[in-house]
Protein backbone atom coordinates (compact mmCIF):
# COMPACT_ATOMS: atom_id res chain seq x y z
CA UNK A 1 0.00 0.00 0.00
CA UNK A 2 1.07 3.51 -0.74
CA UNK A 3 1.04 5.92 2.12
CA UNK A 4 -1.89 8.33 2.31
CA UNK A 5 -1.52 12.05 1.85
CA UNK A 6 -3.52 14.66 3.71
CA UNK A 7 -4.91 17.36 1.44
CA UNK A 8 -6.74 20.57 2.35
CA UNK A 9 -8.45 22.27 -0.54
CA UNK A 10 -11.34 24.56 -1.42
CA UNK A 11 -14.08 23.26 -3.69
CA UNK A 12 -16.77 25.71 -4.82
CA UNK A 13 -15.86 27.94 -1.89
CA UNK A 14 -16.18 25.21 0.74
CA UNK A 15 -13.15 23.91 2.58
CA UNK A 16 -12.52 20.20 2.33
CA UNK A 17 -9.93 17.87 3.75
CA UNK A 18 -9.30 14.37 2.47
CA UNK A 19 -6.79 11.56 2.56
CA UNK A 20 -5.68 10.23 -0.82
CA UNK A 21 -3.23 7.81 -2.30
CA UNK A 22 -0.67 9.37 -4.62
CA UNK A 23 -1.94 7.66 -7.76
CA UNK A 24 -5.52 8.86 -7.21
CA UNK A 25 -6.61 11.65 -9.51
CA UNK A 26 -8.53 14.76 -8.53
CA UNK A 27 -11.44 13.27 -10.50
CA UNK A 28 -11.37 10.11 -8.34
CA UNK A 29 -11.56 12.17 -5.16
CA UNK A 30 -14.21 14.60 -6.39
CA UNK A 31 -16.51 11.74 -7.34
CA UNK A 32 -15.73 9.01 -4.83
CA UNK A 33 -14.71 10.91 -1.67
CA UNK A 34 -16.42 14.28 -1.90
CA UNK A 35 -19.44 12.78 -3.72
CA UNK A 36 -19.39 15.62 -6.24
CA UNK A 37 -20.50 13.39 -9.11
CA UNK A 38 -21.44 16.20 -11.49
CA UNK A 39 -17.91 15.96 -12.89
CA UNK A 40 -17.84 12.97 -15.25
CA UNK A 41 -15.21 10.50 -16.32
CA UNK A 42 -15.17 9.89 -20.06
CA UNK A 43 -11.82 8.70 -21.38
CA UNK A 44 -9.58 9.11 -18.33
CA UNK A 45 -6.72 10.22 -20.61
CA UNK A 46 -7.41 13.93 -21.18
CA UNK A 47 -8.94 13.57 -24.63
CA UNK A 48 -12.66 14.12 -23.98
CA UNK A 49 -12.98 16.99 -21.49
CA UNK A 50 -15.92 15.44 -19.57
CA UNK A 51 -13.96 15.89 -16.32
CA UNK A 52 -13.16 19.59 -16.90
CA UNK A 53 -12.89 21.66 -13.71
CA UNK A 54 -11.26 24.96 -12.81
CA UNK A 55 -8.19 24.93 -10.57
CA UNK A 56 -7.01 28.37 -9.41
CA UNK A 57 -8.87 29.89 -12.35
CA UNK A 58 -7.37 27.62 -15.03
CA UNK A 59 -9.44 24.94 -16.70
CA UNK A 60 -7.97 21.49 -16.64
CA UNK A 61 -8.91 17.84 -17.01
CA UNK A 62 -9.35 16.56 -13.46
CA UNK A 63 -8.40 13.05 -14.67
CA UNK A 64 -4.91 14.42 -15.41
CA UNK A 65 -4.22 15.99 -12.05
CA UNK A 66 -3.25 13.98 -9.01
CA UNK A 67 -5.52 14.54 -6.02
CA UNK A 68 -2.48 15.30 -3.87
CA UNK A 69 -1.62 18.22 -6.17
CA UNK A 70 -4.87 19.98 -5.17
CA UNK A 71 -3.48 20.80 -1.70
CA UNK A 72 -3.99 24.52 -1.05
CA UNK A 73 -5.67 25.10 -4.41
CA UNK A 74 -9.10 26.45 -5.32
CA UNK A 75 -11.20 23.96 -7.28
CA UNK A 76 -14.47 24.86 -9.01
CA UNK A 77 -16.83 22.20 -10.35
CA UNK A 78 -20.24 22.16 -12.01
CA UNK A 79 -21.89 21.94 -8.59
CA UNK A 80 -20.82 25.52 -7.94
CA UNK A 81 -22.20 27.01 -11.15
CA UNK A 82 -25.82 27.66 -10.15
CA UNK A 83 -26.43 30.14 -7.33
CA UNK A 84 -28.74 28.04 -5.17
CA UNK A 85 -31.90 27.53 -7.23
CA UNK A 86 -30.87 30.13 -9.80
CA UNK A 87 -29.23 28.59 -12.84
CA UNK A 88 -26.31 30.24 -14.61
CA UNK A 89 -27.33 31.77 -17.98
CA UNK A 90 -25.32 29.04 -19.72
CA UNK A 91 -27.26 26.33 -17.90
CA UNK A 92 -30.58 27.98 -18.80
CA UNK A 93 -29.51 28.34 -22.40
CA UNK A 94 -28.52 24.65 -22.64
CA UNK A 95 -31.95 23.72 -21.26
CA UNK A 96 -33.88 26.01 -23.58
CA UNK A 97 -31.98 25.15 -26.76
CA UNK A 98 -31.46 21.44 -26.04
CA UNK A 99 -27.69 21.86 -25.81
CA UNK A 100 -27.64 18.71 -23.72
CA UNK A 101 -28.56 15.29 -25.13
CA UNK A 102 -27.38 12.32 -23.04
CA UNK A 103 -25.76 14.83 -20.70
CA UNK A 104 -22.43 13.16 -19.97
CA UNK A 105 -20.37 15.83 -21.71
CA UNK A 106 -22.54 18.72 -20.46
CA UNK A 107 -20.89 19.55 -17.10
CA UNK A 108 -17.45 19.73 -18.72
CA UNK A 109 -18.78 21.81 -21.58
CA UNK A 110 -20.52 24.23 -19.21
CA UNK A 111 -17.33 24.71 -17.19
CA UNK A 112 -15.29 25.24 -20.37
CA UNK A 113 -17.87 27.58 -21.91
CA UNK A 114 -18.01 29.67 -18.73
CA UNK A 115 -14.21 29.93 -18.76
CA UNK A 116 -14.43 31.22 -22.34
CA UNK A 117 -17.19 33.78 -21.64
CA UNK A 118 -15.42 35.01 -18.49
CA UNK A 119 -12.46 36.02 -20.65
CA UNK A 120 -14.25 36.80 -23.91
CA UNK A 121 -17.89 37.87 -23.53
CA UNK A 122 -18.42 38.14 -27.30
CA UNK A 123 -16.76 35.15 -29.00
CA UNK A 124 -17.37 34.27 -32.64
CA UNK A 125 -18.79 30.87 -33.52
CA UNK A 126 -15.31 29.81 -34.69
CA UNK A 127 -13.78 30.90 -31.38
CA UNK A 128 -16.37 28.87 -29.47
CA UNK A 129 -15.72 25.80 -31.63
CA UNK A 130 -11.93 26.01 -31.16
CA UNK A 131 -12.20 26.70 -27.43
CA UNK A 132 -14.44 23.63 -26.98
CA UNK A 133 -12.29 21.39 -29.21
CA UNK A 134 -11.22 19.46 -26.12
CA UNK A 135 -14.80 18.66 -25.10
CA UNK A 136 -16.18 15.72 -27.03
CA UNK A 137 -19.91 15.03 -27.39
CA UNK A 138 -20.55 11.49 -28.61
CA UNK A 139 -24.22 12.26 -29.29
CA UNK A 140 -22.56 14.74 -31.71
CA UNK A 141 -24.98 17.51 -30.87
CA UNK A 142 -22.31 20.13 -31.45
CA UNK A 143 -24.48 22.53 -33.36
CA UNK A 144 -26.93 22.95 -30.48
CA UNK A 145 -24.07 23.19 -28.01
CA UNK A 146 -22.47 26.03 -29.95
CA UNK A 147 -25.82 27.81 -30.35
CA UNK A 148 -26.50 27.48 -26.63
CA UNK A 149 -23.13 29.05 -25.77
CA UNK A 150 -23.62 31.91 -28.22
CA UNK A 151 -27.16 32.57 -26.94
CA UNK A 152 -25.94 32.64 -23.33
CA UNK A 153 -23.15 35.03 -24.34
CA UNK A 154 -25.72 37.35 -25.92
CA UNK A 155 -27.89 37.26 -22.82
CA UNK A 156 -24.94 37.88 -20.50
CA UNK A 157 -23.88 40.87 -22.58
CA UNK A 158 -27.43 42.21 -22.29
CA UNK A 159 -27.64 42.26 -26.07
Amino acid at each position, binding site marked *: *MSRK*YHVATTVNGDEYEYLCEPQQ*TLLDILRDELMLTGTKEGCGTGDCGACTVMVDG*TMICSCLM*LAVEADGRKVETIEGMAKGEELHPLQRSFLELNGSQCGICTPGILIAAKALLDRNPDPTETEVRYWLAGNLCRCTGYDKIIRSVLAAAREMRGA
Partner: protein
Amino acid sequence: MISLKYEAPSSLGDAIALLARASGTSRVLAGGTDVIVQMETDLIEPDLVVDIKKIPELREIAMENGGFRVGAAVTGMELTHHQAFCNAWPGVVDGVKLIGSMQIKGRATMGGNLCNASPAADSVPALIAAGAIARVAGPDGTRDVPVEGIAIGPGKTSLRKGEIVVSFLLPPRPPHSGDAYLRMTPRTEMDIAVVGVGVNVTLDADGVCTAARVSLGAVAPTVLLVEEAGAALAGTRLDGPALERLAQAAAAACRPIDDKRGTREYRIKVAGVLARRAAALALERARQHQ
Protein backbone atom coordinates in the same frame (compact mmCIF):
# COMPACT_ATOMS: atom_id res chain seq x y z
CA MET B 1 0.86 -3.94 -5.34
CA ILE B 2 1.43 -0.30 -6.05
CA SER B 3 3.67 1.52 -3.62
CA LEU B 4 4.04 4.99 -4.95
CA LYS B 5 5.61 7.96 -3.22
CA TYR B 6 4.80 11.56 -4.15
CA GLU B 7 7.18 14.39 -3.32
CA ALA B 8 6.84 18.08 -4.13
CA PRO B 9 10.10 19.74 -3.08
CA SER B 10 10.39 23.52 -3.15
CA SER B 11 14.06 23.59 -4.12
CA LEU B 12 15.91 22.28 -7.14
CA GLY B 13 18.59 20.74 -4.94
CA ASP B 14 16.02 18.70 -3.02
CA ALA B 15 14.37 17.51 -6.26
CA ILE B 16 17.72 16.38 -7.68
CA ALA B 17 18.65 14.61 -4.43
CA LEU B 18 15.33 12.75 -4.37
CA LEU B 19 15.72 11.58 -7.96
CA ALA B 20 19.42 10.80 -7.63
CA ARG B 21 19.05 8.51 -4.63
CA ALA B 22 15.78 6.86 -5.77
CA SER B 23 15.85 3.15 -6.42
CA GLY B 24 13.32 1.71 -8.82
CA THR B 25 11.39 3.76 -11.34
CA SER B 26 10.99 7.47 -10.79
CA ARG B 27 9.31 10.15 -12.85
CA VAL B 28 9.39 13.92 -12.86
CA LEU B 29 5.88 15.38 -12.75
CA ALA B 30 5.41 18.72 -14.48
CA GLY B 31 1.99 19.15 -16.14
CA GLY B 32 1.30 15.43 -15.94
CA THR B 33 -0.47 15.30 -19.30
CA ASP B 34 1.82 12.48 -20.42
CA VAL B 35 3.05 10.99 -17.11
CA ILE B 36 -0.41 10.62 -15.53
CA VAL B 37 -1.80 9.08 -18.73
CA GLN B 38 1.10 6.59 -18.71
CA MET B 39 0.38 5.78 -15.06
CA GLU B 40 -3.38 5.44 -15.63
CA THR B 41 -2.89 3.13 -18.60
CA ASP B 42 -0.24 1.05 -16.73
CA LEU B 43 2.48 1.90 -19.25
CA ILE B 44 4.63 2.88 -16.27
CA GLU B 45 4.42 1.98 -12.59
CA PRO B 46 6.70 4.47 -10.89
CA ASP B 47 7.84 4.09 -7.28
CA LEU B 48 8.50 7.82 -6.96
CA VAL B 49 6.92 10.87 -8.56
CA VAL B 50 8.69 14.19 -8.01
CA ASP B 51 6.41 17.17 -8.66
CA ILE B 52 8.65 20.04 -9.76
CA LYS B 53 6.01 22.77 -9.91
CA LYS B 54 6.87 24.22 -6.50
CA ILE B 55 10.44 25.03 -7.57
CA PRO B 56 10.53 28.77 -8.37
CA GLU B 57 13.10 28.72 -11.20
CA LEU B 58 11.03 26.18 -13.13
CA ARG B 59 7.97 28.44 -13.08
CA GLU B 60 9.38 31.80 -14.25
CA ILE B 61 9.57 33.66 -17.55
CA ALA B 62 12.37 36.25 -17.35
CA MET B 63 14.59 38.34 -19.62
CA GLU B 64 18.23 37.26 -19.61
CA ASN B 65 20.90 39.10 -21.64
CA GLY B 66 18.32 40.26 -24.15
CA GLY B 67 16.78 36.79 -24.55
CA PHE B 68 14.07 34.92 -22.70
CA ARG B 69 14.58 32.29 -20.03
CA VAL B 70 11.46 30.18 -19.72
CA GLY B 71 11.06 27.75 -16.83
CA ALA B 72 10.53 24.16 -17.93
CA ALA B 73 7.31 23.89 -15.88
CA VAL B 74 5.68 27.07 -17.21
CA THR B 75 2.32 25.95 -18.63
CA GLY B 76 1.27 26.41 -22.23
CA MET B 77 -1.51 28.76 -21.10
CA GLU B 78 0.95 30.93 -19.16
CA LEU B 79 3.35 31.12 -22.10
CA THR B 80 0.68 31.96 -24.66
CA HIS B 81 -0.52 34.81 -22.43
CA HIS B 82 2.96 36.34 -22.13
CA GLN B 83 2.69 39.13 -24.69
CA ALA B 84 6.41 39.97 -24.98
CA PHE B 85 7.30 36.32 -25.51
CA CYS B 86 4.53 35.91 -28.10
CA ASN B 87 5.84 38.96 -29.99
CA ALA B 88 9.42 37.66 -30.01
CA TRP B 89 8.73 33.98 -30.77
CA PRO B 90 5.38 33.55 -32.54
CA GLY B 91 6.54 30.26 -34.04
CA VAL B 92 7.33 28.73 -30.65
CA VAL B 93 3.92 29.91 -29.45
CA ASP B 94 2.29 28.38 -32.57
CA GLY B 95 3.78 25.05 -31.53
CA VAL B 96 2.69 25.36 -27.89
CA LYS B 97 -0.85 26.32 -28.96
CA LEU B 98 -1.15 23.01 -30.83
CA ILE B 99 -0.43 20.90 -27.73
CA GLY B 100 -3.85 19.41 -26.97
CA SER B 101 -6.97 21.23 -25.86
CA MET B 102 -7.29 24.37 -23.74
CA GLN B 103 -7.61 22.04 -20.72
CA ILE B 104 -4.35 20.29 -21.64
CA LYS B 105 -2.57 23.61 -22.17
CA GLY B 106 -3.67 24.63 -18.68
CA ARG B 107 -1.26 21.97 -17.41
CA ALA B 108 1.14 20.95 -20.19
CA THR B 109 4.67 22.37 -20.22
CA MET B 110 7.48 22.71 -22.78
CA GLY B 111 9.80 20.85 -20.43
CA GLY B 112 7.42 17.91 -20.37
CA ASN B 113 6.81 18.07 -24.10
CA LEU B 114 10.59 17.79 -24.63
CA CYS B 115 11.31 15.14 -21.99
CA ASN B 116 8.41 12.91 -23.06
CA ALA B 117 10.63 12.58 -26.15
CA SER B 118 7.87 12.02 -28.69
CA PRO B 119 9.14 12.64 -32.22
CA ALA B 120 5.80 14.38 -32.86
CA ALA B 121 6.05 16.84 -29.91
CA ASP B 122 4.64 20.10 -31.24
CA SER B 123 6.74 22.61 -29.29
CA VAL B 124 10.08 20.95 -30.00
CA PRO B 125 10.69 21.73 -33.73
CA ALA B 126 10.09 25.44 -33.09
CA LEU B 127 12.40 25.40 -30.03
CA ILE B 128 15.13 23.71 -32.07
CA ALA B 129 14.66 26.16 -34.96
CA ALA B 130 14.85 28.99 -32.40
CA GLY B 131 18.25 27.71 -31.23
CA ALA B 132 16.89 27.25 -27.71
CA ILE B 133 19.27 25.90 -25.07
CA ALA B 134 17.98 23.65 -22.30
CA ARG B 135 19.52 24.14 -18.84
CA VAL B 136 19.91 20.76 -17.20
CA ALA B 137 20.63 20.44 -13.48
CA GLY B 138 21.72 17.24 -11.80
CA PRO B 139 23.86 15.71 -9.05
CA ASP B 140 27.05 16.69 -10.92
CA GLY B 141 26.03 20.30 -11.45
CA THR B 142 24.46 22.26 -14.25
CA ARG B 143 24.99 21.92 -17.99
CA ASP B 144 23.54 23.74 -20.99
CA VAL B 145 22.41 21.48 -23.83
CA PRO B 146 20.93 22.48 -27.20
CA VAL B 147 17.31 21.30 -27.27
CA GLU B 148 18.13 18.89 -30.13
CA GLY B 149 20.53 17.11 -27.75
CA ILE B 150 17.86 16.01 -25.24
CA ALA B 151 15.75 13.37 -27.02
CA ILE B 152 17.69 10.38 -28.34
CA GLY B 153 14.79 8.17 -29.44
CA PRO B 154 11.06 7.76 -28.92
CA GLY B 155 10.51 8.12 -25.15
CA LYS B 156 14.26 8.24 -24.45
CA THR B 157 16.40 11.21 -23.41
CA SER B 158 20.07 11.88 -22.81
CA LEU B 159 19.30 12.99 -19.24
CA ARG B 160 21.29 11.10 -16.61
CA LYS B 161 19.93 9.83 -13.31
CA GLY B 162 18.86 12.72 -11.13
CA GLU B 163 18.93 15.29 -13.93
CA ILE B 164 16.05 17.71 -14.58
CA VAL B 165 15.47 20.17 -17.42
CA VAL B 166 15.16 23.44 -15.49
CA SER B 167 14.59 26.05 -18.19
CA PHE B 168 15.04 27.07 -21.80
CA LEU B 169 17.09 30.04 -22.97
CA LEU B 170 15.85 31.61 -26.19
CA PRO B 171 18.53 33.84 -27.65
CA PRO B 172 18.18 37.61 -28.22
CA ARG B 173 16.19 38.44 -31.35
CA PRO B 174 18.03 40.54 -33.98
CA PRO B 175 15.83 42.95 -36.01
CA HIS B 176 13.99 41.37 -38.97
CA SER B 177 13.70 37.93 -37.40
CA GLY B 178 10.71 35.64 -37.68
CA ASP B 179 9.80 32.07 -36.89
CA ALA B 180 6.93 29.72 -37.66
CA TYR B 181 5.74 26.22 -36.88
CA LEU B 182 3.27 24.34 -39.05
CA ARG B 183 2.07 20.82 -38.71
CA MET B 184 0.04 18.46 -40.87
CA THR B 185 -2.85 16.67 -39.13
CA PRO B 186 -6.07 15.26 -40.59
CA ARG B 187 -8.04 17.29 -38.02
CA THR B 188 -7.49 20.95 -37.14
CA GLU B 189 -7.36 20.35 -33.36
CA MET B 190 -6.72 17.54 -30.88
CA ASP B 191 -4.47 15.52 -33.13
CA ILE B 192 -0.87 14.32 -33.34
CA ALA B 193 1.47 15.70 -36.00
CA VAL B 194 1.97 13.60 -39.14
CA VAL B 195 4.71 16.09 -39.98
CA GLY B 196 5.76 19.25 -38.13
CA VAL B 197 8.15 21.92 -39.40
CA GLY B 198 9.78 24.78 -37.50
CA VAL B 199 11.59 27.53 -39.41
CA ASN B 200 13.45 30.52 -37.95
CA VAL B 201 15.04 33.20 -40.14
CA THR B 202 16.86 36.50 -39.69
CA LEU B 203 17.14 39.00 -42.57
CA ASP B 204 19.52 41.92 -43.08
CA ALA B 205 18.28 45.45 -43.84
CA ASP B 206 18.07 44.56 -47.56
CA GLY B 207 15.93 41.49 -46.94
CA VAL B 208 18.67 38.92 -47.48
CA CYS B 209 18.59 35.96 -45.10
CA THR B 210 21.62 36.00 -42.82
CA ALA B 211 20.71 33.01 -40.64
CA ALA B 212 18.17 30.21 -40.88
CA ARG B 213 17.39 27.11 -38.88
CA VAL B 214 14.93 24.41 -39.90
CA SER B 215 13.65 21.56 -37.76
CA LEU B 216 11.38 18.64 -38.67
CA GLY B 217 9.10 16.67 -36.36
CA ALA B 218 7.39 13.27 -36.77
CA VAL B 219 9.63 12.15 -39.66
CA ALA B 220 12.39 10.37 -37.69
CA PRO B 221 12.89 8.75 -34.25
CA THR B 222 13.65 12.21 -32.84
CA VAL B 223 12.86 15.77 -33.89
CA LEU B 224 15.57 16.71 -36.41
CA LEU B 225 17.67 19.83 -36.87
CA VAL B 226 18.17 19.90 -40.66
CA GLU B 227 21.27 22.00 -41.29
CA GLU B 228 21.11 21.54 -45.09
CA ALA B 229 17.61 23.00 -45.10
CA GLY B 230 18.77 26.07 -43.17
CA ALA B 231 21.75 26.41 -45.50
CA ALA B 232 19.38 26.41 -48.50
CA LEU B 233 17.87 29.67 -47.19
CA ALA B 234 20.96 31.49 -45.91
CA GLY B 235 22.21 34.15 -48.34
CA THR B 236 18.94 34.18 -50.31
CA ARG B 237 15.79 36.29 -50.32
CA LEU B 238 13.74 33.14 -49.78
CA ASP B 239 12.74 33.28 -53.43
CA GLY B 240 11.34 30.40 -55.47
CA PRO B 241 14.60 28.52 -56.14
CA ALA B 242 15.69 28.84 -52.49
CA LEU B 243 12.36 27.49 -51.26
CA GLU B 244 12.67 24.61 -53.74
CA ARG B 245 16.13 23.76 -52.38
CA LEU B 246 14.70 24.00 -48.85
CA ALA B 247 11.89 21.58 -49.74
CA GLN B 248 14.35 19.12 -51.28
CA ALA B 249 16.69 19.29 -48.27
CA ALA B 250 13.77 18.80 -45.88
CA ALA B 251 12.44 15.79 -47.80
CA ALA B 252 15.94 14.29 -48.04
CA ALA B 253 16.36 14.41 -44.25
CA CYS B 254 13.19 12.42 -43.51
CA ARG B 255 13.47 8.88 -42.16
CA PRO B 256 9.81 8.36 -41.27
CA ILE B 257 7.83 5.36 -40.24
CA ASP B 258 4.68 4.09 -41.97
CA ASP B 259 1.76 4.13 -39.59
CA LYS B 260 -1.96 4.78 -39.41
CA ARG B 261 -1.42 8.52 -39.40
CA GLY B 262 0.67 8.67 -42.56
CA THR B 263 2.71 6.57 -44.95
CA ARG B 264 6.43 7.06 -45.39
CA GLU B 265 5.97 8.54 -48.89
CA TYR B 266 3.25 10.91 -47.70
CA ARG B 267 5.31 12.21 -44.78
CA ILE B 268 8.33 12.86 -47.01
CA LYS B 269 6.23 14.71 -49.56
CA VAL B 270 4.44 16.78 -46.90
CA ALA B 271 7.71 17.67 -45.14
CA GLY B 272 8.87 19.53 -48.25
CA VAL B 273 5.55 21.29 -48.76
CA LEU B 274 5.23 22.34 -45.11
CA ALA B 275 8.86 23.52 -44.96
CA ARG B 276 8.16 25.84 -47.84
CA ARG B 277 4.97 27.19 -46.23
CA ALA B 278 6.60 27.61 -42.81
CA ALA B 279 9.51 29.48 -44.41
CA ALA B 280 7.07 31.82 -46.18
CA LEU B 281 5.30 32.56 -42.88
CA ALA B 282 8.61 33.06 -41.05
CA LEU B 283 9.68 35.45 -43.85
CA GLU B 284 6.47 37.46 -43.56
CA ARG B 285 6.96 37.76 -39.80
CA ALA B 286 10.64 38.71 -40.21
CA ARG B 287 9.68 41.53 -42.58
CA GLN B 288 7.24 42.93 -39.99
CA HIS B 289 9.65 42.49 -37.07
CA GLN B 290 11.54 45.60 -36.00
